[in-house]
């Protein structure tokens, strides 16, 4: 067992961290949210051209660097630490994964654009009728000669207002399918209303009223989108779990520093035992979240039920940690923690939103329970889980370091 990063992974982390600490200013990024476009294209270009992280987990044949879940973890944690609002997870992880698994000419050419930083792709899967249950799609897709006609609505499609392309789920005669929509070419059949989210990102509601798409817009096989969607959701969840760890590291460090400096009753408030214990509890939650991210990341390429169970364990753990650490960071900062004047308020909002994205904490606890039960009913699943686990171990037998080393 080995929790060490490779030399390359360390370089990736250090390069990105350095870039963000010198070039990514919290105040500037918040002001583009409030009065500007909602993101900074020059940062995105730098992600593509200077850092090369827009293809971090995409294969080399589309220009990517072919990294795996560990690279994803390293990058998203750094992005979380700097509270980056640009749509990295939505485009590179969620849409990138869906396109890569679908394959085909359209998907491949779009992947190349994602890597180059010229395409922003957002998934529109959530509907008001089904909330977070992406499998219960009401939006319909009908064949009409050599076109597809989409009819329906999507709610809170994250990053959609910034997107050049949308991946839209719809129910075709064969079942749930995935369609690629070029936003500029969509015409009057698509209307998109964008708005801010509480964590200073952008989302949109979509109305597709007879949206006419060419045949090639069907991505992957008709009716076969669900397994890939499930995987995209797991990968998105794992990525924001790691992002949350970055946020929490920053929030805990800021809180400890504030409590050392803030004087009340003639002493620093950090000298009060009740606050010390609170911060220790925040630290314990954070360390569990770090471990949970490893759990998710190291099983992200396993078979579906192993992956799903690990991701649910991680999302539930990180959700609980994000809630406690975020809320207590505000509490310990007092009124200042509730303002826009310190970083803490901004991080708190992101840590709040994360608890609900890609499935709520309760959803993931429920899914974990279901998957565990299914594993008991069908013992061969457990065996296969164990097999895959031991495979993982035998693949990285380099050292037996403790997590602390």
């Amino acid at each position, binding site marked *: 067992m080995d929790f060490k990063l490779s030399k390359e992974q360390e370089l990736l982390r250090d390069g990105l961290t350095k870039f963000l600490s010198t070039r990514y200013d919290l105040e500037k990024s918040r002001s583009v949210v*409030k*009065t500007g476009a909602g993101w900074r294209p020059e940062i995105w270009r730098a992600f593509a051209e200077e850092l090369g992280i827009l293809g971090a987990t995409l294969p080399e044949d589309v220009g990517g660097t072919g990294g795996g879940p560990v690279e994803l973890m390293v990058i998203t944690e750094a992005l979380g630490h700097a509270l980056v609002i640009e749509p990295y997870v939505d485009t590179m992880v969620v849409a990138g994964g869906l396109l890569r698994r679908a394959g085909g000419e359209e998907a491949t050419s779009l992947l190349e654009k994602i890597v180059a930083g010229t395409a922003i792709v957002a998934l529109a899967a*959530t509907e*008001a*009728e*089904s*909330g*977070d*249950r992406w499998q*219960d799609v009401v939006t319909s897709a009908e064949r009409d000669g050599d076109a597809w006609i989409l009819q329906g609505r999507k*709610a*809170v499609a994250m990053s959609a207002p910034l997107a050049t392309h949308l991946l839209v789920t719809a129910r075709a005669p064969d079942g749930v399918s995935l369609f690629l929509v070029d936003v500029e070419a969509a015409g009057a059949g698509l209307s998109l*209303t*964008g*708005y*801010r*989210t*509480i*964590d200073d990102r952008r*989302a949109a*509601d979509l109305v597709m009223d007879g949206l006419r798409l060419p045949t090639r817009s069907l991505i992957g096989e008709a009716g076969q989108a669900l397994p890939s969607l499930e995987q995209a959701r797991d990968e998105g969840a794992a990525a924001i779990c790691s992002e949350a760890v970055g946020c929490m590291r920053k929030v805990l460090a800021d809180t400890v520093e504030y409590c050392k400096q803030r*004087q*009340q*009753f*003639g002493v620093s*408030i950090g000298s*009060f035992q*009740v*606050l010390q214990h609170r911060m220790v509890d925040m630290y314990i939650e954070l360390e569990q979240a770090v471990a949970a991210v490893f759990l998710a990341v190291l099983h992200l390429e396993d078979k579906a039920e192993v992956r799903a169970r690990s991701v649910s364990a991680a999302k539930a753990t990180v959700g609980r940690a994000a809630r406690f650490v975020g*809320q207590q960071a*505000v*509490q310990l900062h*007092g*009124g200042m*923690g*509730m*303002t*826009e*004047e310190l970083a803490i*308020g*901004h991080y*708190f*909002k992101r840590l*709040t*939103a994360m608890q*609900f*994205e890609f*499935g*709520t904490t*309760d*959803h993931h*606890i*429920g899914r974990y329970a279901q998957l565990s039960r299914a594993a008991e009913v069908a013992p061969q699943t457990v065996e296969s889980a164990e097999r895959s686990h031991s495979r993982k171990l035998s693949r990285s037998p380099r050292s037996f370091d403790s997590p602390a080393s």
Partner: protein
Amino acid sequence: MDLQWSAADAAFRDEVRNFLDKKLTPELRTAGRLMTSVYADHDASMKWQRILHERGWAAPAWPVEYGGCEWSLTQHYIFSRESTLAGAPSLSPMGIRMVAHAIIAFGTDEQKDYFLPRILTGEVFFCQGYSEPEAGSDLASLSMSAVDDGDHLVSTGSKIWTTHAREANWMFGLVRTSRGQKKQHGITFVLIDMRSPGIGIRPLVMTSGEEVQNQVFFDEVRVPKANVLGDIDDGWTVAKYLLEFERGGGASSPALQVMAEEIATAAAEIPGPGGGVLIDDPAFARKLADAHIRTEVLEILEYRVLAAVAEGKNPGAASSMLKVIATELSQTLTEMAMEAAGPRGRAYQPHATRPGGPVTEFEPPPDGYVSGEPWQAVAPLRYLNDRAGSIYAGSNEIQRNILAKAALGL
């Protein structure tokens, strides 16, 4: 001992309902329902106060001779619950529920005659000047100075977390007139005319984007000694008296029960994680039931404290306990409302709400588009604003310190 309402109580409830039916305009109801914090839209709140005042119900808890009502505790509770249920906007607590009680207890006849009727009509609108940047939980270490200058005190310094400082025309606050051995000595309770020269106000933008709180700066502001409440250097006595009203003077359970009921209604329509609606999700249903149980228990606790107060007893440490329970329960409920709002609970849509102060750094989407229902826009803002509950009026850590000492003798 009994928990039943008498026939007279039922008749009173009908009278209140009837009044609310007639007098709460749709506009006021909207302002009440779409509140994003404990503070209603200022104009709506003042409008409602004037209507209540016409009926003699603006300050039911005051002594009758100053314009209060001769209500039983049950009647106070009924009034509070019915008002919340009907969606009435809240009244600012600073005047009616706080400083007025100090004026009644410590004021001169001139102060009572001037302020009390004007607080009732809304002509005088108070904000509170307690906390300072370096004196929050440790309130008694406040340092805003007030120097004796004949008939005046001349005050210089700064107050922070001043709710509605821009809307208020008066402030009640604590200033430092001398420094004794104990920091509680030498504090004076003053009433400051906000139109006095030398006052500057900086709004604080909260995480909800709302500007309800402010920092207020004082540069040699002249305060007539006639506006000192109680004795010079003995303001801590007045402040302590008031803090107990702030912490335990009202009943929170009616509003919390309404919140729990509204969440249940919403959760019966919102899709749940496992198919069906959210209220069918056992995890959510249990959490909501747990919160509901806590509101029922809080109601009885509040009754017991109110009953003691009605007998002329000081609520003392019990008000600290009620503050802790009520604010933490409110935080639980606002969090559940956000969960019930589903994905739309993450949309930032202040234009669909009626916040307690302006939201300036925000441009609504075209045609004022709202994703989902207005309550879904309210939910996240309430969640964010409600984090203040465990911070303001003496943080819950401070309340637990008080309880350790006063209730357990530790």
